[in-house]
């Protein structure tokens, strides 16, 4: 019997290289911004020129170093209490990243579990989960977060809880739909013909096919989580006052926006850049991991 040739060259380009090629500039820019954010958050104590809560009332509201009246020791100037804006931005990045990672992970775990179960079992289980998602999504998310934060009490835990409680639906909805699509595929029924149980099929066959989707969603979700954290700290129900947050800095800067606009401008810029970073990363990953484009 004649053997069939293996298609594809013997030396394949690395999957990572190929993936990054498909992701294009979005993926590069997004990853760069996100990596920068994570590095700054991780290394804040090393990078920051000052203690973020060290006050120096004599040098309050200094403009950034390159403007007239600025001082080299405060590269981005100081706020109304004379605290170093750059250092505060860096420490605030830690809060933002912590919230984004923890909240997005928990939302993903809960949402994926519900989505898989609803997608696999269908029937009344699916009906129940779907109605739950519908009802949940009818609430304005930020308002729900505020109510929740007010009920549980202010603090990092309540911010994370609020985000998780609202955003698990994002994962559940998409995972449920995709699970149903994948179950219709021939490989799923072939797996059943191999004698695998439903749980095994979900874990071993379906879930690996959902990874691109989940990774993409996760990146976007981190951006959303950062935004929600900013909103909650803006309205003052996030972490305690002495911990730097971008939302808190925006509030403080708002009061002196006419005298010292940079105090408010810098944290806003940080929020915008990191959310753009996460969205570009999500977009790029979608292209890079798309199984259709992978062949």
């Amino acid at each position, binding site marked *: *019997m*004649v*053997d*069939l*040739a*293996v*298609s*594809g060259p013997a030396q*394949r380009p690395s999957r990572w290289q190929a993936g990054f090629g498909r992701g294009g500039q979005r993926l590069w820019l997004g990853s760069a911004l996100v990596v920068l954010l994570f590095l700054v958050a991780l290394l804040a104590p090393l990078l920051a020129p000052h203690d973020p809560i060290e006050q120096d009332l004599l040098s309050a509201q200094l403009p950034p170093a390159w403007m007239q009246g600025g001082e080299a020791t405060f590269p981005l100037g100081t706020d109304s209490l004379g605290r170093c804006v750059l250092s505060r931005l860096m420490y605030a990045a830690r809060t933002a990243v912590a919230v984004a990672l923890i909240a997005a992970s928990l939302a993903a775990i809960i949402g994926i579990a519900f989505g898989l179960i609803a997608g696999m079992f*269908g029937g009344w289980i699916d009906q129940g989960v779907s109605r739950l998602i519908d009802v949940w999504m009818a609430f304005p998310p930020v308002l729900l977060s505020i109510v929740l934060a007010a009920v549980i009490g202010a603090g990092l835990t309540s911010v994370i809880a609020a985000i998780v409680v609202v955003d698990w639906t994002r994962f559940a909805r998409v995972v449920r739909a995709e699970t149903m699509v994948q179950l219709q*595929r*021939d*490989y799923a*029924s*072939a*797996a*059943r*013909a*191999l*004698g*695998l*149980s439903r749980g*095994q099929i979900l874990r*071993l*066959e379906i879930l*690996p*096919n959902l*990874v691109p989707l989940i990774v993409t969603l996760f990146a976007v979700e981190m951006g959303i989580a950062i935004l929600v954290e900013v909103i909650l700290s803006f309205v003052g129900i996030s972490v305690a006052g002495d911990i730097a947050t971008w939302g808190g800095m925006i509030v403080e800067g708002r009061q002196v926006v006419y005298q010292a606009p940079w105090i408010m401008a810098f944290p806003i810029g940080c929020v915008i850049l990191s959310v753009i970073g996460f969205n570009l990363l999500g977009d790029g990953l979608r292209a890079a991991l798309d*199984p259709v484009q*992978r*062949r």
Partner: protein
Amino acid sequence: MTAVLAVHDLHVAIGPRGRAANVLRGASLEVGAGEVRGLVGESGAGKSMLGRAVLGLLPANAVIAGGTIQFEGRDLLAMPEPERRSLLGRRIALIPQDPMTSLNPVKRVGAQISIMLRHHLALSKRDALERATELLTEVAIREPQRVLELYPHEISGGMRQRVLIAMAFACDPSLVIADEPTTALDVTVQRQVLQLVERLRQRHSAAVLFVTHDLGVVAKICRTMTVLHAGRVLEEGETVDVLAKPRHPYTRALLAATPRADRPAEALRPVPPALIESLWSEAHRLDGLAAAVPT
């Protein structure tokens, strides 16, 4: 000789309750140990449904309205789900119709084969991969080690079908259901696949239920055959007898309709519409009777 598979008077209906359409109307067939039985019929005859009923892979909206399916003397329909599942892939295997979609697109070939081996034979990871290499060698795949490392989209359709055939015979099943395994392949590859199935069947001494609409394929590898139309068995017997002296007018018309390369295309003789009409009206009359009986 006891039959490996005995389907008796099987009735299957698909669709919502009350408006269900009958797809199998009292179909019966037997497959003896080591026998290769062809199950032929036109599209919609119910031949795939019969195979799927045996495997327990009927669509969710299908109902088995009557009849029995016995495998090695045990009633599959009365069996508890886990017990039946333990037979699938191990004692009863499937060669699926479409090799392009029946492998999980995101898992390497080796991982897919070893999932099954580990599930049914409780092999260690390393033993499973070793066995997988042997299996691929058995289906005449060169460089099996390398193919195990590839993803399904990196190998050709013929190779994928061989991988699926290797998986079907991996646990020495006593019955293999081949659901039109050659339909999605081109003619040259078809022949190789048929030879392969025949060789493996002999080596593993399995019985094969070969579902197909191609009488040429049946003539080539099936010792016995069953002709199905509208969910009913019209004729069955030794392949040589049926093809040489078809008793039922439908079989005769089907044989006459087989296109041949040595005849011009105008000489194609479709099965007479009047014959099909009368067969269907007979089937519907039977439906009426079946519906009338319980009341």
